[in-house]
């Protein structure tokens, strides 16, 4: 009996853990990301972006020391994300919530940001509505409609009359489908068919054949990053769809660095739209990529840049408030902020607190030994179109 | 005492080309003590399985008293008073005998699906279960887990479980199988002492036991009834000698 009680108490003591004293001179940032599971790589790359920014710019801002507390959310788990956000706020006394690779997690945590009046920076999750869930929230990544409406419009203007859309059957995929179709048809194109692919079952061959049967001029593809881009690239090639006779369009994931590596020459000619690629040709980006490679032994991707620019925003906002970490002050400081990122010029829309940036149109081309995304056109100053249409 | 307690007519069952029961018709009068004998593979256990509903006959009918039970589920037959035991112990290893028999009593009383009242509240059922166990001389071990019981005690528990259903007809599949002869005799004494309201059919290989405890004997061979008669008639029957007694007893 006594023994059992001791056990219980011991356990609770373990639960309580070391509670670090709250130093006035510290700004704490709680970073919630998937470090394990299927989205682990996203979490790791994003976090490396955060780390690189802090390596380059030190951990002191406006006289305050920056401390980052990392939490693993393990995948799509909004209830865990919300709990972690709650705990970061009430237990660890963080001043800022950051990270958020996945939309459901960001949405759930945004409620905590709103309730606790904490500044929150979404560094990846790309569904349009996220920023509306908390008035203290800003985003430094991208939104799906931002890319795909710009792209749909561009594809129609480029002279393509008919497309078939093939997207993953989940939130971002449906967003991409809707945005692309909307803009493409508004600009005079015709969508001759569409198919939605289950997220979990990655043999694409049958879906690709359906697309081919519809005989469109072009195919628009959206699949999540990870194992699927390469798989769909190979399925396209094996079903005899090559950029030579059918134009292949997609959001940038399908020609991510590892997808291109495993697709090889099959990928040449695929046209994609995205806001960042490590091949982006600017001195600032070359420097960024070199530093990233030196620190982590690989190239940065969109997640890395989201984390990097997210920290940039946090640092700059803190400078502006003179180290005051109040949610309202920080978001006011962030609104309208403009800067040059390795991805190019970007800013935070003062009205929606969402990211405004350039969407690049790239074609996969042989560059030396390898295939890489080469930018050949761009659409500048793109805002998230969904929120522009929302009634104010 | 007019209608027989249990009657089958024209029971037939085959698995593919293998015929395991062919035109089996038996009739057990109320309160009778029948033995069912036959060489291995004669279809004795199959017959019990057919009567209790573990197997469905291809054709034929089974009547319990006046009622046709051919289409009923096994548990419904039990509820109507038809109980059995198994040749190989088929018990609940982790339950104590008291729990197991109490459960069987609760099933009979129709209260075993009650989940909002505690078992201890059913005092009559518990008392009845304990009495059954005590009457079979296993009251002293009825709080242990069944798996810890001696083999002979487990055989008795088989019978106790069947008795808890208050059967009108009791089918015993080699109740003393594997039990030393001495204990087997005791076991059959217990069976002989059952209320005369209960009609008993038992499968047994030991002819001494059969002739001592059965009022009549049914002989099966190859899925058919060979002959039925009193102990002395069977003992004298030439055909039975040929197919059965001529061979080694447990062959």
């Amino acid at each position: 009996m006594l023994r059992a009680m001791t056990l219980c108490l011991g356990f609770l003591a373990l639960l309580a853990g070391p509670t670090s004293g709250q130093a006035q001179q510290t700004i704490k940032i709680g970073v919630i990301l998937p470090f394990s599971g299927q989205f682990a790589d996203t979490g790791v790359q994003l976090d490396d972006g955060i780390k690189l920014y802090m390596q380059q710019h030190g951990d002191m801002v406006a006289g305050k020391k920056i401390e980052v507390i990392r939490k693993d959310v393990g995948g799509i788990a909004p209830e865990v994300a919300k709990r972690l956000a709650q705990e970061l706020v009430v237990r660890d006394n963080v001043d800022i919530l950051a990270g958020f690779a996945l939309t459901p997690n960001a949405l759930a945590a945004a409620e905590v940001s709103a309730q606790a009046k904490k500044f929150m920076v979404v560094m990846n999750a790309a569904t349009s509505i996220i920023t509306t869930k908390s008035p203290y929230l800003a985003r430094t990544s991208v939104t799906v409609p931002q890319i795909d409406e710009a792209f749909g419009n561009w594809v129609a203007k480029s002279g393509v009359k008919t497309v078939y859309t093939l997207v993953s059957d989940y939130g971002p995929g449906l967003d991409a489908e809707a945005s692309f179709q909307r803009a493409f048809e508004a600009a005079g194109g015709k969508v001759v068919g569409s198919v939605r692919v289950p997220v979990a079952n990655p043999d694409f061959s049958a879906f690709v054949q359906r697309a081919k049967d519809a005989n469109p001029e072009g195919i628009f593809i959206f699949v999540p990053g990870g194992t699927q881009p390469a798989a769909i690239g190979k399925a396209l090639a094996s079903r005899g769809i090559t950029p030579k006779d059918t134009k292949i369009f997609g959001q940038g994931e399908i020609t991510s660095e590892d997808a291109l590596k495993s697709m090889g020459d099959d990928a040449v000619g695929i046209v994609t739209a995205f806001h960042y690629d490590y091949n982006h040709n600017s001195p600032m980006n070359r420097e960024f990529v070199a530093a990233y490679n030196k620190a982590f032994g690989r190239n940065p991707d969109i997640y890395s840049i989201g984390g990097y620019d997210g920290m940039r925003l946090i640092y700059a906002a803190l400078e502006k408030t003179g180290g005051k970490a109040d949610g309202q002050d920080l978001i006011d400081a962030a609104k309208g902020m403009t800067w040059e990122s390795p991805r190019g010029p970007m800013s935070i829309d003062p009205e929606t607190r969402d990211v405004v940036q350039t969407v690049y149109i790239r074609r996969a081309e042989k560059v030396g030994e390898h295939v890489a995304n080469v930018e050949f056109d761009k659409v500048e100053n793109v805002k998230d179109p969904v929120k522009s249409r929302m009634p104010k | 005492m007019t209608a027989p307690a249990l009657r089958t007519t024209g029971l037939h069952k085959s698995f593919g080309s293998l015929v395991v029961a062919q035109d089996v018709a038996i009739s057990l009068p109320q309160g009778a003590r029948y033995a069912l004998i036959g060489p291995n593979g004669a279809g004795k256990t199959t017959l019990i399985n057919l009567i209790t509903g573990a197997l469905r006959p291809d054709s034929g009918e089974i009547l319990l008293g006046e009622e046709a039970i051919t289409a009923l589920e096994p548990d419904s037959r039990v509820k109507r008073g038809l109980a059995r035991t198994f040749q190989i112990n088929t018990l609940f290893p982790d339950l104590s005998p008291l729990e197991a028999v109490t459960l069987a009593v609760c099933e009979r009383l129709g209260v075993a699906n009650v989940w909002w009242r505690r078992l201890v509240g059913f005092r009559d059922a518990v008392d009845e279960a304990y009495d059954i166990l005590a009457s079979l001389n296993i009251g002293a071990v009825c709080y242990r887990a069944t798996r810890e019981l001696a083999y002979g005690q487990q055989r008795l528990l088989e019978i106790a479980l069947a008795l808890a259903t208050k059967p009108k007809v009791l089918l015993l599949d080699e109740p003393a199988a594997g039990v030393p002869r001495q204990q087997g005799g005791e076991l059959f004494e217990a069976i002989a002492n059952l209320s005369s309201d209960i009609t008993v059919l038992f499968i047994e290989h030991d002819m001494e036991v059969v002739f001592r405890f059965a009022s009549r004997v049914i002989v099966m061979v190859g899925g058919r009834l060979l002959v039925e008669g009193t102990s002395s008639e069977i003992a004298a029957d030439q055909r039975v000698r040929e197919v059965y007694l001529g061979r080694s007893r447990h062959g």
Partner: protein
Amino acid sequence: MAGVADPHQYLAAKQRWAPIEVAFWLAMLLPFVLVPTYLPLASQIAITAIFAVSLDLILGYAGLVSLGHAAYFGLGAYTAGLIAKAGWGEPFSGLLIGGAAAGLFGHLTGYIVVRVRHLALIMITLGIGLLLYEVANRASWLTGGNDGLQGVAMWPLFGSFDFDLYGYTAYAYSLAVLFAVVLAARRLVHSPFGLSLRAIRENERRMPAIGAPSRARLRTIYTIAATIAGIGGALLAQTTQFVSLGALSFERSAELIVILVIGGTGRLYGGVVGAIVYMVARDRLSGMNPQYWYFWIGLMLIGVVLFLPNGILGGLATLLPRRSRAS
């Protein structure tokens, strides 16, 4: 109990409240004072414990292994979430409706589930879970699909307790529901019905021979377990005011089995203890090492199997005097 008691005393002793049980429930109140900043975690532990108790009823007591139990959890969560979203934010009635919806689905699927055993049972429950997941994913107009269900707004509990940031209300509410669920489950496992479930687990072949319709029994417990799982799900939806597809996922079903087996099956409190140990370990480990914590979880699972083959409660039962065994 040295001598042989009479049968009533023997049975009564089996279901009497042990002091350690009382101590356990008192200890569950300690987080309010000892670790008030951990209440959000504590309430999710309580919810997982409810879910685990519900699985224990079918797995530990009746012997049905399910790899799709999240279907009922998720259904309860979505039902409660949708009711609140539609404008009825009263928590308690939402909880009951969520449980009822899951119970109804459990009753219907029960007809299929009780027909099969072993690997087929595992795979069919898994299949039901995955199918429901896909349905929820497809019905994004209703469920919000992958983005999760937005706009779940709860009214204060009993009209006066708001769901606060610190999680006081959430934990008190979850703990109270857990207590009620364990009380009900406790009553159930010590009832004649509970006894018949254990008998089915021990030897289903014997059941018809004592006049027991075992499939009907299994359907009943499957319905009850689904209802409790649904209540757990509803509680999660209400306390986090969010529902996502994760509530229905295969991972949640699989993790639940791990939790229950760690704690010990067929022991009523196994799921509760498993939930506490697993989730606290996970929280601590992933806090210390966000990227590789599951390495340590893996080691822990192997350690449990090798050194505590009957789960933590099974291990404790051999250490402590026999009173601590719940059944």
